[in-house]
């Protein structure tokens, strides 16, 4: 194992450069953060992921964000276990009705300021499951949504673009409170 670690010191990192924050995503977010201008968020975001009945494809690509190639944490974005610790709810799936209450409770348990992101076609529009007796459909049928990242599933790069836009929007025009 020591040999592998030593070898990594002398090889190039596998981590790719981050993409620019996606233009579409920034447009979606414009204005939403102004309303929360009284709170300072800082340059890190905590994300609570919620699977609202997805097929697990989106989860695989969200997992990939934490691999050394995409390395989400270097942008100051991390996943947290509790909604109490979260700034962002990243929700996948067509909101299966069996998950609806859990989703709403998890979002309600997240302190303000918080943003809700619909990740994947199912969360954005209901996808192939729109109209099913077992699904609510698009996430915005049950809760207001701040950002949509479409895809089936969205690639890690597409997820990264959307989340970076959220980060920029949250850190942007908010002034730090003066120390008293």
């Amino acid at each position, binding site marked *: *194992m020591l040999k*592998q670690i030593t070898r990594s010191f002398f090889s190039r990192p*596998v981590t790719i450069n981050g993409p620019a924050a996606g233009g579409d995503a920034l447009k979606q977010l414009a204005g939403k953060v102004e309303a929360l201008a009284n709170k300072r968020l800082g340059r890190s975001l905590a994300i609570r*992921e*919620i*699977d609202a*009945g*997805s*097929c*697990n*494809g*989106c*989860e*695989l*690509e*969200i*997992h*990939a964000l*934490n*691999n*050394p*190639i995409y390395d989400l944490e270097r942008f100051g974005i991390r*996943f947290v*276990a*509790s909604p109490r610790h979260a700034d962002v709810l990243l929700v996948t*799936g*067509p909101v*299966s*009705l*069996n*998950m*609806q*209450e*859990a*989703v709403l409770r*998890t979002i309600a348990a997240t302190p303000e300021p918080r943003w809700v992101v619909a990740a994947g076609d199912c969360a954005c529009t209901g*996808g*192939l*499951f729109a109209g*099913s*007796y*077992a*699904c609510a459909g698009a996430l915005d049928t049950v809760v207001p949504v701040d950002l949509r990242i479409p895809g*089936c*599933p969205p*690639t890690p790069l597409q997820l990264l673009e959307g989340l970076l836009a959220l980060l920029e929007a949250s850190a942007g025009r908010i002034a730090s409170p003066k120390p008293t």
Partner: protein
Amino acid sequence: MSESRATLHTVLAGFGQAVASHRPWPRYALDIAGWRQLIDALGHRRWPLLGLWADGRTVHAALEDHSAGEFAVASLDTVDGTYASLGAVRPAALRLERALRDLAGLNATGGADDRPWLDHGQWRAATPLAAEGARPATSRPGTDYRFLPVDGDGLHQIPVGPVHAGIIEPGHFRFHANGETIVRLEARLGYTHKGTETLMRGKSPTEAVRLAGRISGDSTVAHALAFCRAVEAASGTEVPARAHWVRAVMAEWERVANHLGDIGAICNDAAFPYIQAHSTVLREKVLQACAKAFGHRLMMDGVVPGGVAVDLAPEQAAAFAGLAADLLPPFAALCRIYDSKGSLLDRTVTTGITIRSEVERFWPPGPVGRAAGAGRDARLAPGYPPYDELSFAAPRFTAGDVDARVRVRMEEVRQSVHMIQRMLVAMPDGPTRTAVPARAGEGMVLVEAFRGEILGWVRLADDGTIARYHARDASWLQWPLLETAVYDNIVADFPLCNKSFNCSYSGHDL
């Protein structure tokens, strides 16, 4: 012929009538007396129950006679909405019967468990697959569920889920523990039920296959393959030879990518993230190569009825050959590191041992089974092209612990990469897609997904559209075993056990 030598087909032929146009294996229509005779026979025959589902008023049970190499379906047309439960002789039937009642409204009489399973009282309609149509919704609080009672001193309950701490599908686990030791684990699933089987009805195979590929996103190739092969069997479609090979290359890369992720995740849950950091890089290489070759990282919508959507171009085949060669040395290094870390092995060896007697009652497929001495692999039995032209043996371990499930996956990564290398060389030229004729028929298939065999069964209407498709993911035969495997383990080892099984929630819930 003496009774002990009578094979599955012979015995079922004695209980009922073979049905025409069910391919490739026979389906026998039994009456109520024949169904009771079947239950008696299952009491002393070692024929695994592969699946149990309803099509309208008809209940189907799929069975395997391993020593004779025979597969068959036994069916019962229910008259009063009931049928005798198989639960006493086949415990795998218990949850399948509960789901069957939720979806089709047919009751298993004499069953031990009458609780709803997939229906949490939240749907907009009840019994969506019932012959006479869906019934009005019966709503009740989602939390209204009688967990099994537990009695004893010093026991406490730990409810976990449906929302879990990590980035993972939702399900509820109700633990009873004495201190740190798990006394019972009872899972409650169904949270990701999307109504997939109902949505498929009336669609053409080309439309419905997109839903099949989203039964479980991590097994999109295997589930699409099961759907397509069932449709092709039902319609009598002869898929061009090259299509079998391209499909197999996709299926094996899917197996490799998942195993790489799972091996890393299991080690991460044992507080050794180093292996995950490296295995996820290897997994990423596979996904990027698959995206270049087939247009999608997970290869969704790549397997289609009649063949594949995108042929494997020569430069992509060369890239795959290079990737396969490049993967093996760093993967071997990771396996050596796993083997050399005493603190890691201390977590995985003897943890989460599947109980032998339960393994023998459920016949679990996939790595879960192969780690516990049950060596099933649908690529070998019944087998399907092109695997009949590749010689390989399913890895077999017997310890049934987390470590064995890791080692099975390691062996399968090596095996699958070698298989891909051989397939790239041996693949025939030719077309990769043919049209599927629009005609009625019934088809059944078994496909080996990375977590184990999927049973796919389809009935096509006269216009070739889907009248009924049922997919029994491997997880149905593995989730109950997880509950037995964690008994007497510490609560802190549950994530490790769960990851080492890696059952599908969405694949199970449909």
